[in-house]
């Protein structure tokens, strides 16, 4: 019975992985084959399909991190901290890719690699917050203290999120707030965001599972050391 449920779980996992890969391949093919070439920027405009999806992953990571942090503070269960840690790492990756792809876009559109546009600045702030969060976590040994401090920082950092989202409305910058797009372009953008969201969810689950296993190994090693020879 146990072996059968294990095999079923493995099969479900394989189907899930295959679905995520298929979604990403569809988004990639659509970005190059379905989406029309933009008139002024040409093929460089296709960066947007990756850039927006990365930015969404960067934001989603911060939201998951803050929610998991709040759940830890209420429940005091390290499982929630593993979700927060996994979200912090993936959010950092999303924010880094947002900055890189944004810089490539800026060079193609405005002929500069970086500009102090408010939304770019707030994306940089988000990236720096993730980096600080990971550094803070790396500097604390006790897992529960690490979880508590990480949770407080994640919640405080989430308070900065409205600035990231509302930046273009609050300040006037050169970043396109809601660029006018062809319906087919919008459909490709949606496919890309969905594909990256699925990839984010999959990596989040895998990384959380890995952190869980790592904690189990640490606990077993500790108990082995304490056992009399």
């Amino acid at each position, binding site marked *: 019975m146990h072996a059968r449920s294990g095999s079923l779980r493995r099969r479900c996992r394989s189907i899930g992985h295959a679905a995520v890969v298929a979604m990403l391949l569809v988004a990639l093919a659509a970005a190059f084959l379905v989406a029309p070439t933009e008139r002024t920027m040409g093929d460089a405009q296709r960066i947007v399909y990756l850039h927006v999806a990365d930015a969404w992953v960067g934001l989603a990571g911060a939201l998951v991190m803050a929610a998991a942090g709040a759940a830890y503070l209420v429940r005091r269960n390290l499982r929630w901290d593993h979700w927060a840690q996994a979200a912090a790492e993936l959010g950092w990756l999303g924010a880094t890719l947002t900055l890189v792809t944004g810089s490539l876009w800026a060079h193609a559109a405005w002929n500069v690699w970086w500009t102090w546009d408010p939304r770019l600045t707030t994306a940089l702030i988000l990236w*720096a917050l993730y980096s600080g969060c990971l550094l*803070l976590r790396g*500097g604390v040994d006790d897992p529960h203290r690490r979880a*508590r*401090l990480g949770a*407080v920082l994640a919640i*405080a950092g989430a308070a900065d999120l409205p600035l990231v989202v509302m930046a273009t409305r609050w300040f006037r910058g050169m970043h396109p707030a809601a660029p006018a797009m062809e319906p087919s372009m919008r459909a490709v953008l949606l496919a890309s965001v969905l594909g990256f969201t699925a990839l984010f969810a999959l990596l989040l689950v895998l990384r959380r599972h890995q952190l869980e296993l790592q904690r189990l190994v640490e606990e077993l090693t500790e108990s082995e050391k304490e056992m009399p020879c």
Partner: protein
Amino acid sequence: MASLEMTARLWWILWKDLVSECRARRAWPAMLLLGIVVAFTFAGQMDLPPDEQKRVAGGLVWLAIFLAGMLALERSFASERENGCWQGLRLCPVSSHAVYLAKLAVNVVALAALQGVLIPLFVVLSGVPLLAHPAAMLLVAALGNVALAAAGTLLGALTAGSRNTAHLLPLLLLPMAVPAVLAAAEATRLAMDGQFGAPWRQWTELLAAFAVLFTTIGIMLFDFVIEE
């Protein structure tokens, strides 16, 4: 009655920190000295036409306050970790809210002292009319002070529990306080020009919102930070 008692206890911690700083002189002299050195360095770069000078002065003043103020913010909890004072503070019959508010008040006093030195110093060294409208400047300075102190007190307590305390606070506080520094710099620039229209109100409100937000977050979450 309860609030009167809390105010009294808050005052004890504030007084304890101020007396300790006056006797040991651990952070404030270094903070003031760094502020003066930074002000001289920045003033040397402000040999510009008056309009250009006004455009950059607000940002440079607030950057100087931020950089030098970091020393006081970092020490406010790091000093408690030394010599086992942290345990003593936790054993105090006061709520964690009172400890946070007392530490916030100490940091507000430290930053006010820094602003009291740096703002006139910038006026003397570079001739920028920072005090052309003193009431507006006072309001922006007070809001900016509370905003930086509120975020700095919470993050100072957070990083005091980490191995790399001294390096972490600037790394965390700078991105977190960017909206406050930007708003303070812009409100200062507009106040110098006497432009008190909608943009000035917008920046001042953003600064006030940041101060209120981080004071509230600090009060709500401080208990989790000082827990052992």
